[in-house]
């Protein structure tokens, strides 16, 4: 399903049917997920437009109310000034992005997995996060690229204490997702103090078979891109 398509196009498998068909001067986009409501949209464009389907920042569904993704995992204890790499899973949201005249727009975003939000920090001043629970893995786990992606997380403990870490908050504005045989992200968490940590994305994919996914947030022309997120309410 992932990839670039010229319109009109059609894709179908056991779970989903996607199509853009010509209807007079219009193009009709239809998405039908098994046991879910059909979504339709009319495009006023030409055949020069292209469609990209790829995983996007998983913070849009069911409604875009936050820019943060929180991944909870089994607590791990890391030694003072230690450095370790662990693997987690993260949720997948799939974006259908139309491109024409050098501009892009997400015409549809859908997901096969469940959604849940959470609050990081206090109700006054904290942030709403899109929450996902994952096990931890010492090597890249098997994953269905339409349901979950693999997050390679570098944990760097800069303190002189043993610290417990059980969650990570990632900022969607600087999220870099890569896809190919699987979907992946690469991030780092630096533990700066017993209550404070900093997370950021690593832009270089480790595996060469991966290509970078189109980011929806960039297509929305959001200018204030912050590279690191400060987890000031614990980790």
């Amino acid at each position, binding site marked *: 399903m992932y990839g670039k398509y010229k319109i009109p196009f059609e894709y179908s498998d056991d779970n989903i049917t996607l199509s853009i068909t010509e209807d007079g001067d219009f193009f009709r986009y239809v998405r039908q997920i098994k046991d879910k409501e059909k979504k339709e949209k009319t495009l006023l464009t030409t055949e020069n437009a292209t469609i990209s389907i790829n995983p996007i920042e998983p913070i849009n569904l*069911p*409604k875009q109310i*936050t820019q943060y993704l929180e991944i909870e995992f089994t607590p791990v204890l890391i030694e003072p000034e230690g450095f370790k790499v662990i693997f987690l899973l993260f949720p997948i949201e799939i974006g259908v992005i139309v491109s024409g005249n050098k501009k892009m727009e997400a015409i549809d975003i859908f997901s096969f997995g469940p959604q*849940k*939000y*959470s609050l990081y920090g206090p109700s006054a001043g*904290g942030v*709403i996060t899109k929450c996902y629970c994952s096990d931890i893995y010492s090597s890249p786990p098997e994953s269905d690229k339409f349901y979950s992606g693999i997050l390679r997380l570098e944990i760097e403990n800069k303190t002189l204490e043993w610290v417990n870490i059980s969650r990570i908050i990632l900022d969607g504005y600087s999220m870099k997702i890569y896809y190919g045989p699987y979907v992946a992200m690469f991030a780092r968490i630096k533990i700066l103090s017993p209550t404070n940590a900093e997370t950021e994305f690593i832009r270089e994919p480790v595996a060469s078979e991966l290509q970078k996914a189109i980011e929806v947030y960039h297509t929305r022309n959001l200018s204030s891109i912050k590279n690191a997120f400060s987890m000031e309410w614990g980790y």
Partner: protein
Amino acid sequence: MTGIIDSALMNQSTIFALPLYGETTVTDLIWFVIILILAIIIAKIITLNITRFLKNRVPKNDLNLISKIAYWAIFSIGFLLALPYLNVDLSGLFVAGGVVGIIIGFAAQSVFANFLSGIFLIFEQPMKFGDNVLVDDTLIVVEDIRIFSTIGRTFEGIYVRIPNEKIFTTTITNYVANTARRFEYNIGIRYQDDAARAIEIIKDLIDKEPFCLKNPAPSVYVDQLASDGVIIKTRIWAPSGVWWDVRTTMLWKIKCAIEAEGMQIPLPQRTVWVNSTNEENTPFIPPTVRDKVSPKNLQSGVPFQSEPAKEQSHTSIEYNSSFES
């Protein structure tokens, strides 16, 4: 410093000491101009900074008004400071100004109070555009915060203008200022229903609803053994922006899910025992009921059923104060 500059000017040429009119010399005139120029420069700098600071906080019209007021206020102070160099006697002006100021002050007291309150509100920011706030007794969606008043819209779509002074001096409840907020339900089930199963159902529903926050965790527990049923308290946190939608949808989902499991929301019930031992203590029975009472049943200690053939766990006069399905 003034003395140094004065003496330097005097040393260079006596022309600066020549009176132009009255006792005003060229030096005085130069000082007057210098102070005015300084006042203009300071006014421009301050106005520029005010404009930058308030650019995204107040509407454009109000921003122009504030910057103009700031500019002319600073310029006026500079002008008044410079005037003595022209040997203008300000005492009369101050007296007249004072009297006029008092008159204007009384006349424009509320206008000035609203203006100042507007300035403070802009800095304090107890609410933003789009916030749901309760000001005094008025619940509004904030649409504009102006320099003299705040404009809102009630949920019925009615335009509301509230003077800033009132907002500044009254209690403001901002329902969406914080990131998340909690709401709660009291879910009643009958005594014969399984409360543990009901709690499980409610927790499962909350878990499936994306906007019911995982943290802070919801709490669902038996809160009361009330007269009509068991009350299960359900407390849920939701993002402030969507809490109302969640609150309205979840209640019905819970009701449907509980009923689907065979449980029922209890309706008010009253059990009345008739215990008459003699004539004087004969209980009052409403005429509508009295006709159905068998004299035999009114004997001491014999209970009476107003609704025949109903399943009851005890013998009593039992009737519902409202209908139960």
